[in-house]
């Protein structure tokens, strides 16, 4: 007798996600499927558009991380024009992107991750949200969170003209530079963000690391996968979010490959399943081996923790200290404990804040040579950035008039599609046992597995209610025998 539990929808990736859990007659988990029920067709409908328009079209893939798509698109378009780019434009784009990271990571940490830790994974769902977090840590901190995220958005608007739905990049650079008076306006905000990031780390230490039960869940819970890590690194193998090479390291720390953006298709391939619109990337040279773990697995994660796993060091001194502290607490580098992604996100923000400070001190940053007019159309480009939610690849081709002839996109969360399937199954199998009816606490703990990835469907909880509503049905012979819901 097969019973089915549906979690529909969990939250979104460009739409919605849905988990189906099938139980056998005894109530043990037989199989699980994490389905993505949406497709919008960007790769096809950008064909025929002028290639320089793409960076301002593809931002609509995701309005939560539009800057990632804008910059990956801009770099792919730079490639189509022979990669002639004003050097100052690269600096400004990088600066802009650090502010975007901080905005996104703050939203994720406080609205999504914090409720599970500050209030507890099985706490009352009615208050297990960001308002509950604010109630516990104080309204003053709640206000500070709103203000800090708002400042990070405003810094982007000042540098690039807009925040959500970016327009700023053109082939060869950016449309506007940063004026000295604009720099003067954002400088104190950068200092505030730096302090806020330090504060967030302290909060994490006090609340999470100070509680042995949480540390136990992180290190010894079912939230572990024996798959590899992917991330963008600079020439010193330190994380770089805007440019560099993609490095893949196995879970024992050995480098599997390191490739330039234009080599991506030799290293990554995408498997298709009939039951989900979202594809399943894997390491091409190892071949698709199904949803399997192990040192020979062809699967990888692309997350904040994965980025620190592939990095030999951080790019800035404070971040380096925090990185060392994190891995020594977690028992060494690299780390497979998926819940450590929440910590990794904070360590990344330290680098973001230090880099922003560095750019604010850069005497060249207010220069006016922010764009060169390209002299030739070479017809093909691959742009890779680290989106907050994973390595993001845009590959475009165009004809001699600069009209797009093809586009291929491997989006951040997509990289994690197979690991998310696997952790969902693993946690469900560990927690739902014969004779144990799954309650809201158990279902929330299943969600904590994929929530660690900050999949784009967690945008749902990037909002104030901060709570993914759930509906669970247990079916026997097509009849609902058990039904409860968790309100938002």
């Amino acid at each position, binding site marked *: 007798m097969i019973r089915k539990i549906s979690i529909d929808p969990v939250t979104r990736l460009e739409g919605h996600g849905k988990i189906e859990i099938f139980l056998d007659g005894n109530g043990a988990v037989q199989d699980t499927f994490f389905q993505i029920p949406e497709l919008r067709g960007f*790769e*096809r409908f950008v064909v025929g558009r002028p290639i320089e328009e793409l960076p301002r079209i593809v931002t609509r893939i995701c309005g939560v991380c539009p800057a990632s798509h804008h910059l990956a698109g801009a770099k792919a378009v730079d490639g189509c024009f022979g990669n002639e780019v004003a050097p100052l434009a690269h600096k400004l784009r990088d600066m802009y992107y650090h502010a975007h990271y901080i905005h996104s990571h703050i939203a994720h940490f406080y609205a999504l991750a914090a409720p599970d830790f500050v209030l507890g994974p099985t706490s009352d769902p009615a208050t297990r949200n960001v308002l509950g977090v604010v109630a516990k840590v104080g309204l003053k901190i709640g206000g500070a969170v709103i203000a800090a995220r708002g400042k990070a958005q405003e810094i982007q608007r000042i540098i690039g003209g807009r925040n959500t739905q970016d327009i700023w990049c053109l082939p060869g650079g950016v*449309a506007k530079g940063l004026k000295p008076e604009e720099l003067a306006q954002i400088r104190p905000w950068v200092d505030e963000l730096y302090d806020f990031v330090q504060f967030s780390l302290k909060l994490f230490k006090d609340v999470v690391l100070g509680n042995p039960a949480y540390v136990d869940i992180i290190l010894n819970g079912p939230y572990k996968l024996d798959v590899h890590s992917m991330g963008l690194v600079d020439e010193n193998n330190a994380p770089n979010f805007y440019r560099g090479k993609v490095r893949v390291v196995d879970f024992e720390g050995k480098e599997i490959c390191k490739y330039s953006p234009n080599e991506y298709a030799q290293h990554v391939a*995408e498997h298709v399943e009939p039951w989900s619109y979202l594809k399943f990337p894997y390491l091409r040279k190892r071949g698709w081996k199904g949803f399997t773990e192990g040192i020979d697995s062809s699967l990888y994660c692309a997350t904040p923790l994965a980025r620190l796993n592939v990095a030999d060091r951080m790019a800035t001194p404070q971040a380096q200290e925090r990185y060392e502290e994190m891995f020594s607490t977690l028992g060494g580098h690299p780390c497979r404990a998926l819940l450590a992604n929440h910590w990794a996100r904070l360590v990344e923000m330290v680098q973001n804040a230090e880099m922003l400070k560095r750019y604010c001190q850069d005497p060249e940053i207010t220069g006016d040579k922010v764009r060169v007019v390209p002299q030739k159309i070479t017809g093909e480009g691959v742009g890779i950035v680290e989106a907050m939610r994973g390595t993001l690849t845009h590959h475009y081709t165009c004809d001699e008039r600069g009209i797009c002839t093809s586009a291929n996109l491997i989006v951040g969360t997509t990289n994690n599609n197979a690991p998310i399937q696997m952790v969902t199954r693993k946690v469900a199998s560990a927690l739902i046992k014969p004779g144990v009816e799954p309650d809201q606490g158990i279902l929330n703990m299943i969600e904590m597995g994929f929530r660690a990835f900050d999949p784009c469907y967690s945008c749902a909880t990037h909002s104030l209610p901060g709570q993914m509503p759930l509906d669970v049905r247990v079916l026997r012979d097509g009849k609902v025998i058990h039904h409860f*819901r968790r309100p938002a």
Partner: protein
Amino acid sequence: VADRKFQIAIYWGAACGGCDVSILDTNEFILDVDRLCDIRLWPIAADGKYKDIEALPEAALDVAIMNGAVRNSENEHIAKLLRRKSKILVAYGSCAYMGGIPGLANLVPREEIFERAYLNNPSLEPGNRTIPQAEASVNGYTLAIPKFYHRVYKLDQVVDVDYYVPGCPPQPDQCKAAILALVGALSGTSPAPPKGSVVGASDHALCQDCKRTRAEKKIRCFYRPWEIIPDPEKCLLEQGILCAGPATRSGCGVRCPSSGIPCRGCYGPLPNVVDQGAKLLSAVASVLDSKDAEEIARKMLPDVAGYANRYSVPASLLQRSHRR
């Protein structure tokens, strides 16, 4: 303001999440919204919430704010549910209002979208012939995903809409203005805007608010944005860069032209204009310095539909593309 809290729902269809971020970007105002309203659903409905909403009496919600276009069977189902359960339904953002960027998909056949995604691109698994199905059988289990429609619809092609808030995304101050207008109307402190109104935007063209100077000059030649570095003070259109300002409703704060980037029309058409793209082409024709049809055709830009109806293909006179 009122003796009870307003019941509101915020939901998305085929959308990117940018509309929800625009609401978050009102920053501290969100706390006022929370004070005035019970947010029954936001920003994304779950099945449980569908059930909660389904269990409500008809018109139990004061306001439902829906962003995103209608691309699949699930989007349509929820749009209809929210319509039944709410007194006021607001189409929020360019996708709900006009189809938006996802609406560009109406220029290509559905089959080609699937071909490109699953059968023909450089990173697919070698030899893949699998295409996702609305209903699939795996190891004896039946798994369903929503049906992907042949075209994208704007919200009012599927349900009756009371108000429209344009923008991709709406600017946070306009979002605030629109919410305050609705709260005022609901609490009787200000008159309700007439049904079908565009709220949170102006009634005049973007050019009227643009700081760039115009010389009423005719243009002989178009440039694509990458081909020249435009003068920072002068009208972009007069410099030969196609800008949708003359055919677009103002309200966005002129952020794109102020940053040296031409408008692509996300705030939608001016009042009483049926097709924003047709209006733009007629505005451009009036500044073209030529009467020779062939010369004009030569000077015209590529991808006229993609420029002129960037955000409004489903709302335009253009029909969707068919495969023969």
